[in-house]
Each structure stands twice: as structure tokens, then as C-alpha cells.
């Protein structure tokens, strides 16, 4: 089966092995090590790692379209945020009558706005299954509608990037409005539990971390399988020479559209995993800056490698947590400098650096032989 094919591949095995090892290690260090031990991993840190893993999944989704399709999406934050909002709606409904106003059905912000019933698009948001479906469907449908229009009329390159940026910007403006029914600028927060488990307990946090890790592994394998498949070959062909691929008889726009939709769905899942772990979703996730930051993760890690995206996401976000804690003023300098340095001096990212070194070694070994 094409989906299991990557499991026989060396790089995928290494990636999955490292990921599994890290997950086991974090779990052990959290559960089995006493709290005052220097190696103890606190629940806060577990939560933080869980957040990073959902970011990593998002980065993989972006790498799929940017690395293999050549489409620089500056709006993937929108798909991420939409997945997050769908999950947020479910979590909001789970609060039930424990909100500030104690309304059995309506979330607090709707009571505050004097609404007397849930808007139609909140229908079904109390069912987890339905939510899980919508987490992928909502970003998928948006990506389909946008991509269908864009790819059909062959909007590519820089134009497409700017359009995706405009898309997420427009969504941000829309979600800032109270009338949208998604909590306006405050967004949704004060979540209580998910599937009956209290979100604030350490066990739930650990479980969410592990689920994020599994989701990343599954997402990675799906993307790898996609890339290795025949469809993936056409992707790379259309990235490198769109016109030639077209002349060979491939419907490039269909390939682009399908991969774009898959990527948006993955981003939605990442958003849905992210929201219960940070406990809030608000329109700032739609900000164009966030979407561009995702691209930086991928650029730093190395385009078109998938594992590079994961490395980049983890590194940048760890640095962000570190910098904003130690010297918040320096973070934007560091981030900005990183953008410049990576694009000028490290066009292939860290993964490219690793490959280069490996190749150099191989050559060295070849010469004496």
C-alpha cells in the first residue's frame, strides 16, 4: 500500500524513531522522575512541547506546498486558525452552564451580546465526532475554493503569495468583529474539559502531548507517502517546470489543488491540537506575521525535506520561548536577523547543511579507494 511505503525508507524510520524516543523520554522524565530532580520535566514543559509538536505538524503542511509544489503560502496560518476555531467551538460548548453567566447553551460572549440562540454555524459543535470532521473540512473547503479559483487561472509565484496573505488578513479582520459569533477580539478561552477530561490536569496535558506527537508522525508519513507517490513526482515536476509538465499532458492545476487541500487539512488538524493545549484561540492567529513565521521555520529547517520543517519549527519556537522570557526586546531582532541570514547564507536550511556534510564525507571516502 502506498501509505506504508515510506516506512521502509531510511530517513522516515530515523525520523519516526527519534520522535518516538523523544516522546517516551519526555513521558518517563515527567512521570518517573521526582519533581526536585534536575532532569524532571514539568507539566508546563510537557505542555510547551505539545505546542511545539502541533507547530511542527503545521510546518510539515507548509513544507508540502512550498517545498514540493513551489507555492509559497503566506496564509497557512488561516487554515491553522480555522481548525483551532472549530476545536474552540467544541470546547466552548463543553463549558456548558459553568460559564460566568451560567447559560446552559450559549457561550459567555453570546450572552454578553444579548443573543438568544446559537447561530446556525454553531450547529453540531457539541459533538466531538462532528468537530473532528469539521477540523479538516472547514480549512479543506476554504483551500479548495481559493485554490480552485487561483490555480485554474494560473495565479502563481509571488502573486499567489500575496493573495494568500490577503486572504488571511481579510479573515483576521472578519474574526475581529463581534458580529461574526466567534468571540470577537477576545476569541474563545476559559475552556474546561475535552471529552470529559479536565484540560487543566497534568494527565490530560501529557495525553495531548502524546496525541500531538502521534498526529505529527501520521501527518509526516502521509506527506512522505504523497511525495514519494507518482502524484508527488508530478508535484516536483510542476514546481521545477510548470509549463513542461503541462505540455506532457498533466493537469497541473488539479495536482496543485489536491495537494494544497491536503496541506490545509493538516494545518487545520494542527490548529485543533494547538488550541486545547494553549487554552485560547483568538483572531491574532490569523495575523499575516504568524503565517510568514511558519515559512521561516520551514526555510530554516530546509525546504522539501519534511523533517527539516520539523527541526525548524522546534528550533525557532524554542528560541522564541527562550528569548521572550530572557530579553523580549531582542526577539524581533533575532527573528528578523534569522530571516535575512537564512535566506542569504543558508538557502537550503539546516537539512541542506546536513546533506552537504554527508556528501562531502562520502566523497572523502571515495577518493582514497
Amino acid at each position, binding site marked *: 500500500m502506498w501509505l506504508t511505503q515510506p516506512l521502509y525508507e531510511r530517513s522516515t524510520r530515523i525520523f519516526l524513531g527519534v520522535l518516538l524516543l523523544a516522546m517516551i523520554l519526555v513521558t518517563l522524565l515527567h512521570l518517573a522522575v521526582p519533581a526536585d530532580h534536575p532532569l524532571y520535566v514539568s507539566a508546563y514543559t510537557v505542555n510547551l512541547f505539545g505546542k511545539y509538536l502541533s507547530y511542527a505538524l503545521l510546518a510539515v503542511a507548509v513544507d508540502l506546498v512550498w517545498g514540493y509544489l513551489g507555492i509559497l503560502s503566506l496564509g497557512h496560518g488561516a487554515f491553522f486558525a480555522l481548525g483551532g476555531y472549530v476545536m474552540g467551538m467544541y470546547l466552548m460548548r463543553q463549558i456548558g452552564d459553568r460559564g460566568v453567566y451560567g447559560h446552559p447553551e450559549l457561550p459567555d460572549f453570546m450572552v454578553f451580546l444579548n443573543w438568544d440562540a446559537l447561530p446556525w454555524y454553531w450547529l453540531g459543535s457539541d459533538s466531538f465526532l462532528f468537530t473532528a470532521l469539521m477540523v479538516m473540512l472547514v480549512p479543506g473547503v476554504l483551500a479548495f475554493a481559493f485554490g480552485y479559483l487561483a490555480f485554474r487561472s494560473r495565479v502563481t509565484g509571488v502573486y499567489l503569495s500575496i493573495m494568500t496573505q490577503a486572504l488571511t488578513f481579510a479573515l483576521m479582520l472578519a474574526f475581529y468583529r463581534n458580529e461574526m459569533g466567534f468571540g470577537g477580539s477576545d476569541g474563545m478561552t476559559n475552556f474546561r474539559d475535552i471529552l470529559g477530561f479536565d484540560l487543566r490536569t497534568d494527565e490530560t496535558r501529557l495525553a495531548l502531548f502524546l496525541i500531538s506527537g502521534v498526529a505529527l508522525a501520521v501527518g509526516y508519513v502521509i506527506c512522505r507517502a504523497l511525495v514519494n507517490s507518482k502524484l508527488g513526482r508530478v508535484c516536483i515536476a510542476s514546481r521545477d517546470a510548470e509549463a513542461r509538465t503541462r505540455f506532457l499532458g498533466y493537469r497541473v492545476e488539479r495536482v496543485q489543488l489536491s495537494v494544497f487541500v491536503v496541506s490545509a487539512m493538516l494545518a487545520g488538524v494542527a490548529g485543533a491540537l494547538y488550541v486545547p493545549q494553549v487554552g485560547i484561540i483568538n483572531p491574532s492567529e490569523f495575523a499575516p506575521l504568524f503565517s510568514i513565521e511558519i515559512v521561516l521555520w520551514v526555510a530554516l529547517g530546509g525546504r522539501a525535506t519534511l523533517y527539516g520543517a520539523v527541526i525548524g519549527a522546534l528550533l525557532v519556537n524554542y528560541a522564541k520561548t527562550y528569548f521572550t522570557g530572557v530579553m523580549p526586546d531582542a526577539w524581533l531582532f533575532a*527573528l528578523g536577523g534569522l530571516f535575512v541570514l537564512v535566506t542569504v547564507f543558508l538557502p537550503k536550511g539546516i537539512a541542506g547543511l546536513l546533506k552537504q556534510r554527508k556528501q562531502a564525507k562520502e566523497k572523502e571516502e571515495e577518493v582514497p579507494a
Partner: protein
Amino acid sequence: MKPLLACLLLFLTWLPSLSIAEEDVRAGALLEALDVRSFADKGEAISELAISEDPRTRYWLNALLDGSLQRTHEGRFVVVLNNRGRSWPVEDALTQEDLGEISRRELNRISINNSLRNQIRSLIAVADLYSEDLSLRRASAERLVGEVDEALAEFLAEHIEQETDRRVQQRLSLALAIYQLEQGELDAVAELHGSLNTDARIALSRAAAQEENPLLAQEAQAALSAIEQRLKMNRTAETLYFGLSMGSVLVLAAIGLAITFGVMGVINMAHGELIMLGAYTTWAMQQLLPGQPGLALLLSIPAGFMVSGLVGIAMERGVIQFLKGRPLETLLATFGISLMLQQLVRTVISPQNRTVVTPEWMSGSLVVNDALSLTLNRLYIMAFALLVFMALIYILRRTRLGLEVRAVTQNRAMARSMGIKATRVDMMTFGLGSGVAGLAGVALSQLTNVGPNLGQAYIIDSFMVVVFGGVGNLWGTLVAGMSLGIINQVIEPWAGAVVAKILVLVFIILFIQKRPRGLFPQKGRAAGD
């Protein structure tokens, strides 16, 4: 009332001939007459006072009007300067000499009622009609609209002829016509036809509603609908004005990008920050030249151009030239630069907004008619945007640099083999585009808050304008900016500002699907690919 006005005329041509003492005695008597019970008598006394030839008449009438003309228990007339607290500072009504503070229990106000108040107001206004000062005359004529009574009407009918200023004349005829309409004169309707004045509209709708004179009602109704028509036109003009104003801001913000992105093909995400630097230059200039905001603003036009232009050149030399032919990487690198520039401003200056002063000659508004007035600062910015646009067109079409820029963008290798230094041209072009962004910042500092986030607000809009207009086409940018501004203003009244913005974005996204190369795509060799 007629002799009253005759005397008023006299009073205004009066020459000082009485001795001070005599004068004060007379004035004392005039004021004395005001302190009577009956309002009818008081009215007489006020008329007396108004036609007295005393130069202090206006002062007394004003004091009487706002209730500060009072009398002490000793019978002295005083004017209260401030009526807070228990004892009030007063001055003598006759000599205007400072009398210190007097307990408010010692004072009795010369009270007036509403009809007297109106009488006084008209008297003051009429007196002002003779003033040498044109602005005073205009204000007075303005005040008389809707306040005309029988006596005044007679006076006005004669006085209009003497008036030299056309605006005063128009106002006075309007005031007269409103009175005549109220008296049921049919001719007055013709005079009010198409007037946008609120009082005129009220008078007309009253006349249209009454039933005693059906002919008049009919005529008034016709005049009213004509006015409605004109009001609608004015509203359209206003929307258009706001749209053009917003459009010119968009054009200013985008025109620099039209050069760096459109002509050179460099995606400069730091364009917004170059705008911000221009705005901060204005602020810095005003700090350097305190008390002279106008001069500082004028000086910051070249200064803003230089600052942003030099930063742009540094960016081009330092980063962008190494990323030639990799547009997506350029986008990311310049975005990084934009983050650093923002943080630089935050660290060096302040994360808070700075206030830039608007010079006097830029504030205020140009009054076109009763329903339409145009704010001056927006007019200036519109003119500035057009000027910058024209200058850029000139540079690109008529100068050596423009020729070289066009040559390099069309065929770099060929241009180089003809002896054009392509790297120098790149540098100059990028500097030019960046400098224009600085100019936009100078203009924007007059409209919005100057803060580290100023640029971010405009970057997406700017790209939209350039893409919508067609990359590489300055005229396209102009048309696109103006039309987006107008579209936005047309949608805004019924959808709200945020929804209008969203709709415009969605519109552009859909438009680009239909015409990926914008409104005015480049044709022929320049189009390239």
C-alpha cells in the same frame, strides 16, 4: 422700529463729540432704564440703548444677553466676569474699572426673557452688519438667517443693496426670503429654490405642510424636492471626495512599491517600514524645530525621502542584490528586515505613538456650501500624491535614469552590453522607490498616528493596489488606488469600515483570479515572464 434703525445708522457714523462726563451721565440713564419690572418697558429701553451713540453699546448688550449685567445694592451697574463660587469678580459697567470681588448676595441681575434675548441678538447682529471687519459681517449675516422679524425685514430689504460682499449679500437675501416665505409670499420660494440651508429647508417644509395656501404649499414642495436632489448630489460629491482622499493615500503608499516591485520585480516586504521611517522623520524634524511645525513639515519632505531612500539603498546593497532571481527568498529576507526596523524604532524611540503636529495652514476645511465642506489636510495630501506621481512619471519617461531603468528591466543582458551599469541602476531604482515610500510616510504622519506599527497597516493594501493595477504600470497603480479608495467609501456607509475592507480584499482576490495581470497588464516585450 424704523426710527430705531435710522438712529443705528447714525450711531455707527458717530464721531466722539461728547465729553466723558456727559457721556457717562447719559449712559447711566440708559442703563437705569433697563432696571424696570415690565418686559415691554425693558424692550423699549433696550431699543433706546441700541440707538444710543455710545461705543459701549455692544458690550452692554452682550452683558445683558448672557446675564452678567448686574446691579449692586448701592445701585451701581457692574458686569460679572466669572460667576463661580460665592463672591464674583466684577468690573464697573461704565468705566470698565476692576472692582474686585463682590458677594453674589449683593448683586441683582437685570433679567430678560426669551423674546428680549432674540431682540438683543438681532440688534447685535444688525450692528455688526456695519462693521468694517468682513468676517464679523459674515458671521452676523449668518446669525440673522432664521431670526428675521418684520422690522428687520424692512431694514434688510434696503441694506442688501449697500452690502459689497457677495457672501454677506447672499446670506441676507436668504434670511429675508425665509421671513417672506413665512409671511406666505410666493416669490420667496423661487429665492429659496435649491438652497441647502437648514433653516430654509425647515421653512419650506413648514410652508409645504400648511393648508391655507395650497399654491404656496405646492411650490414649496417642488422646491423641497429640488433641494433633496441637490443634497443627494452633495452627498455623492462628499463620498467621492473621501474616496479620492483615501485613494490618494493608497496611491502614495503603493507608488514606491510600484517601482520596487512593479518595475524591478523585488518583493519588498519592508516597504511599510520605509513609510514608517518617513513618518518618524517628520516627527524628528518637528522636534528639531519646535514651534515651527509648518517649516518642519516642508523640510521633512526632502529629509524623509533621503532617510528612507538611504535605508532602501543599504537594504539593496546589503541583502537584496544577493537574492536576485529568487523572489520568494527576497520576500522572506525583506520581511526579516521589516521586523528589525520595527523593533529598532521601538527600542530607540519608543513603542508608543508619537504625535505629529498639523501646521495651521493645513488644518480647517474648505466650505463649498451648506452641506459640503472639504478638510484641507486631505486636499493637500491629494495634491501631494498627484505631484509625486507626476514627478515619478517624469523621471521614468524623460530622464536618463528612467531610460536606463526601463532598459535594464526589459533586457538586462542587452542593457549591460550597451554600457549601462546594471547594478548601479538597481541601486538607484530601489533607492527611488524607497524614498517615495518615505514621502508617503511624511504625508501619512498628517493623517494617522505615528507608531512602530504604522507600516504594517499599509503593506497589504499597497501590494493589493499594485497587483490590482497591474505590475509594472504606474498609471495602473494610480487608477487602482483611486478606484479602491472610492469603492471602499461607497461600501462603507451601509457595511461599516471593517466589512468594507474585507469586501474590497475579497473583491481583489476574485478579480486577480479573473485577470491575473491586473487592470492594465503589460504587453509586448516589457511583459516578459
